[in-house]
Structures are given as structure tokens and as C-alpha cells.
């Protein structure tokens, strides 16, 4: 199905230098974007009729503690008009603020709250950045790799 391959080519053309790297596995494609271009690129991907990624299926993160940029943000985009999918990623330093995508797709609101809750990533401009699954007075971020699986 070659999901997202053409959209990544178009992103490279429209935002030169924005795509840091790209990858694919089992015919699913992703692009790693520069943090500064994330919101602008996503808004273009949503609004340009050639791409029309009108759904943000999910937003999440992964923690790679041994990497110089240990925080990886992952966004799964879907286009209902074209039945296409694209994965957008961003890498950043620990503790850095990242811009919210809740102004582009409202589904980012709860998804980013969960990402904050689980990884401690702060989303700049988020309308209501509170913990969502863990208790309000909880102090840890359980999906970070240093969080122990057992308390022995």
C-alpha cells in the first residue's frame, strides 16, 4: 500500500530541510521532522487537498534514554478522503517543551495529556495539560524507561 511515501516526498518539497530523516518497515512509512516545523507541516498536511490528513488517529511518545535526543514523539495520521496513512515523528531533548498539535486536530488534546502523564513531556499551548490516567498528586512518569517495573 506504500502508506505515506508520497506525502513525505511532498513534505520535502514544500518544507525544505524540515524532514530530518525517514524510514519504513513493512511498507509503512514515517518521517522525522524538525521540531520547529512540526505544527506548520501538520497543518499543511491536514489542509492541502492533495493530502487531506483530516484525522490524527493517535499521538504518543517513546523514551530512548541512551540517545542524545531521548524523547521521541509519534503521530499517526489518516486521510479519510484518500485512505492513506502517515507517521510523523519528532526527536527532542529531555525536559524540552514541545508545541501542541491540539490546535490542528482536537484528538491531540487527550492524547497529549496522556503523553504528559506517562512521559512528563510538556506541550506548549495545550489548553488543559493535566494528568489523565494517573492521580493528580502522582509525581512519577511511568512509561519512562528509568521507572522500575518492580519495587524490590
Amino acid at each position, binding site marked *: 500500500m506504500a502508506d505515506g511515501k508520497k506525502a513525505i516526498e511532498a513534505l520535502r518539497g514544500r518544507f525544505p530541510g524540515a524532514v530530518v530523516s525517514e524510514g519504513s518497515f*513493512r511498507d509503512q512509512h514515517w518521517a522525522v521532522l524538525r521540531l520547529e516545523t512540526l505544527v506548520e507541516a501538520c497543518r499543511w498536511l491536514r489542509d492541502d487537498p492533495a493530502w487531506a490528513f483530516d484525522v490524527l488517529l*493517535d499521538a504518543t511518545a517513546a523514551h530512548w534514554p541512551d540517545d542524545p535526543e531521548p524523547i521521541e514523539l509519534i503521530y499517526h495520521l489518516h486521510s479519510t478522503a484518500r*485512505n492513506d496513512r502517515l507517521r510523523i515523528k519528532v526527536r527532542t531533548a529531555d525536559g524540552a517543551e514541545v508545541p501542541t498539535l491540539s490546535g490542528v486536530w482536537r484528538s491531540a*488534546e487527550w*492524547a497529549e495529556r*496522556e503523553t504528559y502523564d506517562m512521559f512528563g513531556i510538556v506541550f506548549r499551548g495545550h489548553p488543559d495539560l493535566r494528568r489523565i*490516567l494517573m492521580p493528580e498528586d502522582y509525581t512519577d512518569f*511511568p*512509561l519512562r524507561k528509568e521507572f522500575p517495573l518492580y519495587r524490590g
Partner: protein
Amino acid sequence: MPPTYERSEEHPDVITLNMGPSHPATHGVLRIVLRLDGETVVKATPHIGYLHRGMEKIAENRSYLQFLPYTDRMDYLSPLAANVGFALAVEALLGIRVPPRCEVIRVLCCELARIGSHLVWLGTHALDMGAGTVFFHTFRDREWHYDLIEHLTGARLTTSFTRVGGIARDVDAAWLRKLRDFVDAMPRRIREYEALLTKNTIWLKRTRGVGVLRAADALSLGVTGPSLRASGVEHDVRKLRPYSGYERYDFEIPTGSEGDIYDRYLVRLEEMRQSLRILDQALRDVPDGPVSVEDPKVFLPPKRKVLTSMEELIHQFMIVTEGFECPAGEVFHSTEVPKGELGFYVVSTGGKAPYRLRIRSPSFHNLAALPLLCEGGLVADVIAVIGSLDPVLGEVDR
């Protein structure tokens, strides 16, 4: 937790009312803090997480096979569908495809699960709004569906029926006959439920034009499943990205036009009929053959061989005690479960456990639409809206 009833000084007419987490109409441990001006909802704030078990964290320390039982405990009204979704995601990571007989049995599982889930939704949703009779009809038939699941898997709720590369065991002819009886009887049963509700004046007044979700809002909020289709968007993973051989079956995707509670009701009702259509076609053509891949590194060898051959004994021992290796890579694989699009994003760095397992839960995103649907409406309609979104908190909280 703030007091359950609170009046503020600056807005003496606006009160704060706490609803849940233990409330019979919230379908689980959902808590909503409502700001009410008289009977009008000014603000609705859902609080979730009461059923959070940290499944995504647990997955990082379990072999792929050991994680399977956790998928039973997400949407506990349709565990079979989540079992299939998880198995397919790991199979996509491995790059393997199961034999045709297994695919058909998985389709039977998924559609049976959809009917079971929709029967609970319909019974409880109608009960919440005072139509108690429907509940007894749907739960009678849901009992039947549970008997089928018990015969198939040995369990009614915690099915854990799929395996990566196959299913736990083959089905027998007796089960297929029993399922055929169910498929033949259900259309009449669905007409019974319809007779109770579809033209019922009270039902129409409670559901029509209430809790309207426009298509643009639904898409932006990431709503999927029947709740999105009722708003007129023909989004169904079974059609868009067929898996497990769904492209072989002739079925329609019911959609609504108004996006109100009544449309969501009609769409789910029609979905049950379409599920029966798929079951009917699948039952007519269950191919013979194996129900699992023949890869001793992934799938358990047959017990007969384990007891007689050293090599198979070692394979069984390795899979059970350590699990199997997955290549480094990442996949996002979706299936259409009764609540919407269930996605598993599996990140592997090689090895026997995922580095990161993200569960894209349809109920989580569907529930995010709740404030939009409730605010400006009446407090009594909050209960109707919750029922119409059909959230399962086990899946919301994971």
C-alpha cells in the same frame, strides 16, 4: 475528590454535580463533573483512569504471547476482537500470514464479538433511559452468544483465544452448527428489539436531535467506529484496509446523516445485521487445513509431537519459557472492533518483548467527544449521550 454537590458564590445558580465513578449509567468507572445551571449542562469534565492498569508498561516486560491475556481485559465486552487485533499486529511485525482456515475462524470470532458487544450496548443503553424490557431481550441472546464463546474457547470472558501465528485450537463441527443456529435465529430477535424502540415515541423524543456530533468534529476528535459512521463518515477498517480476509465478504457499512443518538442507535442495530451477513457467508465456506503457521520458532508444535520428539519438546520449552524473537522494526496495525478502530503500535528493537507497545483505544478517543455532546444540553441527556458513545472503561484506561 471535590464534594458531590457544590454551589459557588459568584454564580449562585450554577451548581457543581459529581457523577460517578460508581454510577450505574456510566457503564463502568467513569466520573464526570457537571456544572449545571438548572437542568442545563454548562460544563462537563470527564475524569478517567480509575481502571488504569499500566498495560503499556507491563507489555515492555512480557513476551508477546504473555501479553495476549491483557487484551481480554481491555474491552471486556468483546475480548475476542482485541485478541485478533493484537495477534495481527505482532504478525505484521513478523511479516507472517496465518492459513485461510484460521483467518475465517478469526472473522467468525470478530463478528460474534461485535454482536455480543452491541447486545450489551443496546440493553443497557435502553435500560438507562427507562426502557427496561429491551434489556431482558438482549441479555437472553447475549447469554446464547456467551455459550458459543464458552464452547469455542473454554472461557466466557477471558478468552485469550488467538496466538501469534494462529489460534489456540481448531473449532469442531458441533460448534459451527451451533453458530449456524444462532445466525439463523438472530434476524428475528433483532426485529424484536426494533419493535420495542425504533418507532417508540418516548425513545424518539429522547434520542432524536440529542447529542448531535457533526462529521467535522468527529473527525477532528478522532472518533471512530459506529459513532463516527452515524455522523455520515464511511470509515471502517474492515473495508479500508481489509485484514484476515474481510475483502472476501459482501457487506455494507451503515452510516447515519444527523449524527444524533438515534442515528448511532440505527447504525449499531444495522451493524448487527451486517455482522450476521458476514457470519453467514463465512460459515458457508470454512476451508479445511491447518489453523496455525508451521514455524516452530513462533508457534507451539502439536502436543503429540512434543511428547515424542526431542526437537519439538525444545521448541515448546523455548516458546513457553522465553517467547519468540521479533525483528527490529515498528508497525501500526488497526482492526475494526465493536467500539471503533483499535490500533496496536508495536516498536521492537529485536528480542522477545516489545520496546514500546502503544494501544490506540477507540473508546478513549470516542469519550473525548463527551463534553462537546453534553454541554448546552439537559442533565438527563448526559446519560443518553454516554450510552450512545458506548465506552468501555477497561479499554479507555487500559
